[in-house]
Every structure is written in structure tokens, then in C-alpha cells.
């Protein structure tokens, strides 16, 4: 997964504003201390503006829609409380995939298929598709690419084949 490390939407906005706010002009000109003293009030006002802007950007989050959780089987219990799942689901899946693929452990509690079975959307039976779908909605919100479904099946639609013993 490609993480934009440690950056929330608000901190990104703040850093962009700070950069554009002309703070780097002093060093660009190679100016003296005198220059700095003379322009101090101007910089102070600019800084104040930046602060106001940053706070404003923080409060008005209208541009980034909040995640919408619409799941097929609500109410059924997940493996851990939501706050734990939000932080650790990726490492849970990472560790289990090694066990499943390389060691052949099946039927483990942690499974991507298990995620999909509960969290698929009511309308299209998938965790992807629009920003109303479980995986996509949060991953869009935090700007983290979800690579799982380039190979894994994101929907519950396909029926598993049954067969006979060897």
C-alpha cells in the first residue's frame, strides 16, 4: 500500500499554505538581519493570516466527504473494536496472508474474504465501486491506495465450487 505517511488532509493543507506564504523569501534574497527587522511587522501579519487560514481550513472540511459506512451485515461482531480494526487491519491481513499462502493455514479468523462477507455493500455486494463502499470510502478519505483488489475478488457474488474428495 502506498501511504502518504502521517499526513492528514488538514496538515497537508497547512503545509501548502505555509510554503506559499512567502516565508522563504528572506533566504532567497540572501538578506541581512536589518532587512529581517524592517520586514518583521509584514511577516507577522502574514503569519497571522496563515494561521487564520489554516484554522479555517481545519474547520471547514466540506471538500473531503466523511466516510459513509453502509454494510450488508451490520451489527455482527467484528474481530476487534472499530478503533483497533481501523489501525491494525492491514497488519492483521499481512501476517495472515503469509500463514495462509506459505504455511497452508485455512479457516483462520483473519481473512480478506471474511472482511468482504460482512462489509460488502448492500447494493452491489462489493467493498469497492463507489465512495459508499466500505473499503473504498475510508481509503479515499485517508488517501491510501488499496491494492488488494487488483488480484482479490472484491465482491461476494461468485459461488464456490464444491467437489469430491481425492
Amino acid at each position: 500500500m502506498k501511504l502518504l505517511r502521517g499526513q492528514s488532509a488538514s496538515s497537508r493543507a497547512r503545509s501548502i499554505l505555509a510554503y506559499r506564504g512567502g516565508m522563504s523569501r528572506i533566504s532567497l534574497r540572501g538578506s541581512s538581519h536589518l532587512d529581517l527587522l524592517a520586514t518583521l511587522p509584514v511577516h507577522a501579519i502574514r503569519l497571522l493570516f496563515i494561521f487564520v487560514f489554516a484554522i479555517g481550513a481545519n474547520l471547514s472540511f466540506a471538500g473531503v466527504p466523511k466516510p459513509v459506512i453502509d454494510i450488508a451485515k451490520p451489527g455482527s461482531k467484528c474481530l476487534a473494536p472499530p478503533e483497533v480494526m481501523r489501525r491494525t487491519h492491514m497488519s492483521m491481513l499481512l501476517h495472515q496472508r503469509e500463514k495462509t499462502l506459505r504455511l497452508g493455514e485455512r479457516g483462520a479468523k483473519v481473512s480478506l474474504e471474511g472482511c468482504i462477507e460482512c462489509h460488502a455493500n448492500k447494493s452491489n455486494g462489493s467493498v469497492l465501486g463507489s465512495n459508499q463502499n466500505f473499503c473504498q470510502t475510508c481509503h479515499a478519505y485517508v488517501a491510501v491506495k488499496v491494492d488488494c483488489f487488483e488480484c482479490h475478488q472484491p465482491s461476494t457474488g461468485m459461488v464456490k465450487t464444491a467437489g469430491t474428495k481425492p
Partner: protein
Amino acid sequence: MSEETTPDAAAVRDPARRAFLGVSATAAAAAAGFVALAPGVRLMELAQAQSSYPAAGQFASSKIRWGMLIDTTKCATGCTDCVTACNKENAIEPGSGRPAQSSQWIRKIELTEQAGGHRELSLPMMCQHCANPPCVDVCPTGASFKRADGIVLVDRHICIGCRYCMMACPYQARSFVHEPLHDQNPEVPRGQGCVESCTLCVQRIDRGQGPACVEACTQAGHGAMIFGDLNDPAGEIAKRIATTASSQVRADLRLDPGVRYQGI
């Protein structure tokens, strides 16, 4: 796989232990007044046939060596039942108008003996699940690996699509996925940019079933393919190999393939 990564021996999926447990369960059920469904049929087996995995904590056992025996005298020329079954099970579809690029996990080969009476021969060719797999030797990332029970797989999570393994495989068993895929089988994740090959239907084996190709061949009445544990002397495959001559394709390379052929 190294021995260190093998989990606790007690937790290993061991057929002998399983059989013992099964027998004792039947005995217990009989003692408790339950009636067996039919001779040799137990609820447990029925449940396993209904596509359920064993409980968590059981791992592939190094005591098992999964293998296949193909009787080419029973393999009909022009019959592609195994290929069709494989494509269906693993959701392999021909690429968008470019069959040369589409994945091929199993293919039929037709041979004609040049000398004598021009004997015709037909056989399925797929990943031979070597004990000493050259694809695993050459893989630069460790994506190509051999499971404890002898199944050679690709870990797509770390495959970088370099295709070294395709060059190394003397059986040309591996394919590269050139285009984005959709509608995969949930149990068989496949995707663009990775190399893939026959998995012996590992998802079915872990449920206690056999590969789809073998099942199709048996159901169609050909009976040219049998699947089982090469290490189990009581199993049909080991018995057949012990009593009838069988050969390995490119035995000179000493790769010890898990797929054996009869009649070639």
C-alpha cells in the same frame, strides 16, 4: 520451505492422525447410539466435501507429497475436459482477443511416434510440482516457493513479474498475466503483472478435495488422471507407481517432479 518455519508438529495436518481421529469419532458415535450414514461415509467427510476448510491452526504437512499420475493410454486425443475444468475452477479466461497472451495452467499435448506404426499419444502438461523446482531457485524475490506438502506456488504479493521462473521452467508451465483481470474466483486471486501456474488447486486440496482437472477426468469416465499423496504407501497413487512402470518428463534434469506419466 525451511524446517524452522514449520509449525508445531501437533498442529500439522497429518492424514494418519486425521484418519485415527475419524475412526475414533465413528466409534464414539456408534457407542453413543448414532447410526453411520452408509459404510465408509461419515458426517465429517460430507461436511468436508461441502467446501469447508479445517479449523485454523492446521498447516500443510511435510509428511505429505501431493502428486499426480497420468495414464496416457487412457488420455483421449482431442479431449480437453481437464483444461476446461481448470479454466472454470481458476477463472482463467482467454485474454481480450490475444490467445497467445492468455494464461495456460494446463494444456493438452499430442505426440506422434515417428518410428514404427506412428503411435499417437495425448497427455496433459502442467506444472510438475518438482521437489527441486528450478523456478524457486531463480526467483530473485522469493515469490516462487514450495509449500511443505510439495505444491509449488507463486506468492503474488511479492512477485515482481520478472519472468525469470518462466525461463527456468523446462516444462513451460508458467504464464504471465499481461492484462488487468476481473471476476476472479475469490479463492484464486490472480492479477496483472504476476507470473502464475498450476497450483494443483491448492484451495480444493486444503478442503480435502482433489484438483479440478482430475475430478473432471474421473467424472467423464476417462480415469486417466489420479491424484494423491506420493508418500502414503497405502494410497492408490503410490501403489500404482510401485507396481506399474511410470516415467518423469525430463528425468535427466533430476527435478523429481510430482506429476508422473504412464505409457510414454
